[in-house]
């Protein structure tokens, strides 16, 4: 393999989706996938199909809501947008992530 691609870490996909929706506003599934890959500068190996169960999971928890609409190039697409609960969830999970990664970094450096 030329450039080492990272697998999406278990449980972090939800966080990535939430963050994308927060910064980009309502988006459809394909858009979210493209956006995540762009931001990660194609270093993330994302199986796009896994996005849909993740979106459904977030919807079941009330973090996002979905609505059919018309895309930028005039296609029918299902748009997902963040709810208030979703924003709260994002804040919590982001903080968790920071704490966790800081801790893991500390452990890696000291040993």
């Amino acid at each position, binding site marked *: 393999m030329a450039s080492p691609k990272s697998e999406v870490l278990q449980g972090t996909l939800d966080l990535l989706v939430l963050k994308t929706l927060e910064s980009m506003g309502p988006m459809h599934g*394909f858009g979210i*996938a493209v956006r995540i890959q762009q931001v990660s500068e194609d270093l993330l190996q994302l199986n796009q199909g896994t996005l*849909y169960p993740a979106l459904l*999971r977030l919807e*079941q928890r009330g973090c996002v809501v979905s609505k059919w609409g018309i895309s930028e190039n005039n296609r*029918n*697409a299902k748009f997902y947008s963040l709810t208030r609960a979703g924003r709260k969830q994002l804040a919590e999970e982001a903080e968790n992530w920071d704490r966790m990664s800081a801790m893991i970094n500390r452990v890696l450096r000291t040993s």
Partner: protein
Amino acid sequence: MRELCRAFLHRLASLFRRRHLEADLDAELRSHLEMAVEGNLCQGMSPEQAHRQALLDLGGIEQTKEMYREQRGLPMIETTLQDLRFGFRILRRSPGFSVMAVLCLTLGIGANAAVFSWVEGILFRPYPAVSHQEQLLALTGTARAESGPTDISWPDLLDLQRSCTLIDSFIVSKIMGTTLSNGDRAEVMVGSIVSANYFDAIGVHPILGRGFEPGEDSGRNAHPVTVISFQLWQGRFKGDPQIIGKTQRLNNVEHTIVGVMPDGFYGTFVGWAVQFWVPASMEENFEAGGYKLEDRSARWIEAYVRLKPGVTRAQAQQEISAVARRLEADYPETNRGRGIKLWPLWQTPFNNSGTLLPTLEIMVAVVVFVLLITCANVGNLLLVRSFARRHEMTVRLAIGAGRGRLLKQLLTEGLILSAFGAAGGLVATHWCSHALVLLFPARGGVAMHLPGEIDWRVLAMSAGVCLLATLVLGLVPAMQIGKIDVAAALKSDSAGVLGGGAKAWARSGLVMVQVSLSFVLLVGAGLLLQSLQKIRNTSPGFSTHEVLDTAVNLVPAGYDAQRAQNFQDELLERVKALPGVESAAFARMTPLSYRSFSSTPIAVDGYQHPSEEQPTVQYNEVGPDYFVTMGIPLLSGREFTRADDEKAALVAVVNETMAAQYWRGRNPIGERVQVEGRWMQVVGVAMDSKYESVREAPKPFFYVPLRQNFDRSAGLYIRTPLSPETMATALAREVHALDPDLALYEVITLQEELDRSTSPQKVALTLVGVLGALALLLAAIGLYGVISFAVSQSSRELGLRMALGADASNLLRLVISRGLTLTGGGVLLGTAAALALTRLLGNLLYKVSPRDPLAFGSALVVMTIASLAACILPGWRAARTDPARVLRH
């Protein structure tokens, strides 16, 4: 938490909008792909390449959908529904098997549910109308001189009521009967003498009128009021809405009807439905022995107590015993050596729960057996079927089904079968809830009342049984899945690959279990049959044929003693004059009937009882010619004559055991015995006979003349070769001629009386025998199945043997010896089980040891014959193997 709930509801809701959601998902993925393809085209890919890359990026449409579906619904429920649908389809495809299996299970589960409902309705929850019956306990007296429980006196009960703080209420309910004439037949009505608090304390309230008021249970004959049952109101009074305030003559006293109890309330006596209640103040009118409410030595009360909440039986017993000890000290002449005992309801000694307990125990054991046998049988059927389905299972494994998933499928199929069986069983139980009564004869013309009770505990028990059956049914074929070798099984579809040895072992094991279970039942049936025969062959000590027994109850008709004596004399003259009558006599009690004889303390000149207490002995009041009529031989002396009346000297006849025990070899004729303070001269010694049960050991007993101890409710005994029916007509005519208002009880032979007394043995024998035969049949079928399967599987081997010179009889012997080996294994298992279990029959056995070799031997013979029969056909088929044809294949 709220999030989880919400997610669950979301998933649950999705189960019901599957089609819509599926279309939605389809559209979403389509739009995703279209956008991806468009993007790829923009990057300069060819259309095919663009499409391929889009699919690659997505990771496949079906895969995505499958992931999505798992997130969307509740996979467990969905696969269960799928399994159910599939299971139903599979079972519908082989209706013969399914019907057979469901019928077997209905029998197994239904028998269990029915017996549980009887145990519940008779032992554990006998009074469904009574509130909080778990707080009720039965109350009896005890006496050091007597082995069984005794009744309680009214003054003792009042003292207990005053002194006990842990007990909420003392509830008196003494069963009794009265007779109402119904044309020329006497109709017996069961009633109950109760304390005034009765209805309030048990928490059942009248639907019309009132219950008894405080104080109505005191004062001699002071409150002639009665509360009647719903059945009596509907039947005899045709549901008269103006019934309250009307009067009914009961035992010749007009009683005002003050209340009607609700439908479904049958009083508090297991075995009989009570029709009317009177307060204890009216006791003298219904009970023999005069006014007893102020007599501490008159023990006649049967009672219950209701504990205060949170009080245990042990605590209450402790308190009651303390009070009883104080009563012993305060009233030594009546209470010395006497205590009071509390019993759990299911052990209530004075009603039928105690007498039915052993029968019910055997029933429970037998139905568990039936369940095991049906499970083994259905398991065997399933095994055969799993052989037919091995190809399906192998294919499913090969295309990626997990073994767990297959197991779940098999368990679901088992669940469907057992659920149908359980449903059928419960329906059957509902129909049979009153069937127990059919096993017990009516006594004294009143049918018993023994309802089953189907409540949540019975339902839970049945569900448990059903689940157990499911496990067995699912796991038997599942054992086979574990052994499937996919590669080998797919390569060759021929028989024998699927771990044939292990399968044969499992089936053989099941057959051995069946054989052993039916062996146990056969042994049980053999033991019961032998003891029933022994009972039949035991002479009760009096003639049973050609002696008829009936009664005319003079008490309810208002006869006083003088009138009753005249009536008896006149009737006796008329009866003796009837053609075909050899002799006739009156006596108070019929031997071997359901009632027990009175007993009394006695004293004998020159006899010192080992213990301090006075010995008590049972007795009967009999008229002239009693011994001749009954055919009880007198060993010495004479029997009573008409001269032994109230004006003559008091006399008695003792039996040989009493003579031996109290006069130690001396001739008792001319000696004296003291009964209730009166000295009587012994004038005769009668041979021992049976008094209360054919199975009883010889015991002391004596007779006194009816005239010197008069009782208006005496029975009539007639020695005649005529049939009871012929005699009944003639008797009814004579009774009517004397008094048109009187009615006659049923006329039966003493043999009939004896047969009725052995009904528990007969019930047990019927149950064990019928189910034993059924089990034997099932086991034989199972054995037949195993052996013929083995024969069909080993036709090559058989052909080879034949080609090598074995002849038909060799092969027949081979097959039969295989069958007998299985039977032998089963019999060994069964013998071990039977040795442990026949003790259960304990007191139903008479002069037969629970390890009786004859019973075991004959069970072995029957079993062997059955298994030979089961092996003959497959053996014959084996012997006819055509080596040329078999070896060619």
